[in-house]
């Protein structure tokens, strides 16, 4: 009996799935439009939830308000203006470009430009620091030897060892 009860108890949470906000309008098309709009709006009580998903009382009231205004035939922009007039731009998840939101909108690009500027400046400075030195004929020859060697032994550091092929597997050697 107990072994049957445990899996049955495990099934219990199935009955308490997260429910969509209550009090729906009779008209499902209007309800969908309302939810669509409410998803773009922020609930002021639980600030990181949208008006569509919040279960706070204020969100319910505001959804009721939006629903009624849609029934009155107001378009989405008029409803958004209505809410912004009362609660400010804070209700918008997509804040408008304004004097006070300039930093928000263009700040990241400004930071990117500053970063690129610093990078270019540093690279230029570094270029000036790396002195170009002429090689003497002996050094040039040594370098050529090393480079020649390293071409033959790609995996090896260029050293002055005699040119043989140590990286070739033994069983292939004739």
């Amino acid at each position, binding site marked *: 009996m107990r072994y049957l009860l445990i899996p049955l108890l495990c099934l219990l949470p199935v009955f308490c799935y997260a429910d969509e906000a209550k009090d729906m309008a009779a008209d499902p098309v209007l309800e969908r439009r309302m939810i669509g709009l409410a998803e773009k709006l922020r609930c*002021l*009580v639980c*600030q990181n939830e949208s008006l569509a998903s919040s279960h706070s*009382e*204020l969100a319910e*009231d*505001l959804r009721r*308000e939006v629903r009624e205004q849609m029934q009155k035939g107001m378009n989405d922009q008029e409803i958004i203006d209505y809410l*912004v*007039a*009362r*609660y*400010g*731009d*804070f209700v918008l998840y997509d804040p408008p470009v304004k004097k006070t939101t300039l930093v928000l909108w263009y700040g990241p690009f400004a930071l990117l430009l500053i970063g690129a500027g610093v990078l270019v400046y540093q690279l230029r400075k570094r270029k000036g620091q790396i002195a170009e030195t002429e090689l003497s004929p002996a050094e040039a020859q040594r370098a050529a030897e090393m480079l020649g060697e390293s071409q033959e032994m790609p995996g090896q550091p260029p050293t002055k060892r005699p040119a043989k092929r140590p990286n070739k597997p033994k069983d292939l050697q004739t």
Partner: protein
Amino acid sequence: MARFILPFVIFMILAAFLFVGLGLNPREVPSPLVGKPAPAFMLPQLYEPAKQFSPQDMQGKVWLFNVWASWCGGCEQEHPLFMELARRNVVPILGMAYKDQPENSKMWLHRGGNPYALVVTDIEGRVGIDYGVYGVPETYVIDKQGIIRHKHIGAVTMQDLDKKILPMVKELQAK
């Protein structure tokens, strides 16, 4: 040495920003209603439901409009301050019982005292929406012309009264 100064300065600037950010209250959303006329409404009074009140009735006076509810914890906190303010008769305080059943509102006022010159009832919270109420208690300072001068979100503290609200009321009353 110089190579440590620049990162240190940048760090200090960042730390200063973060420090200021810690002190900010994300629940305080600036109200677009400040500087605008107080939205008009007609609501029944708590003790005389047959009588209506409109902000128009307060024209020519500076007043505080306090949105509260019997279910609100912050309201209990600020209540003694309003009682004291009412006793000193500095400025009329009008209350709006927001999304509250009248009998509960009355019980609450009976228990803690009634500092309000008048209480109106907004049972459905519609006027609350017009005033951009999102977290009671909220307190508005409204001037003689009926313009909202200040909105305080959350429980009013002694400091808020002394530093901000009362000086403002005095200034507006002198105008």
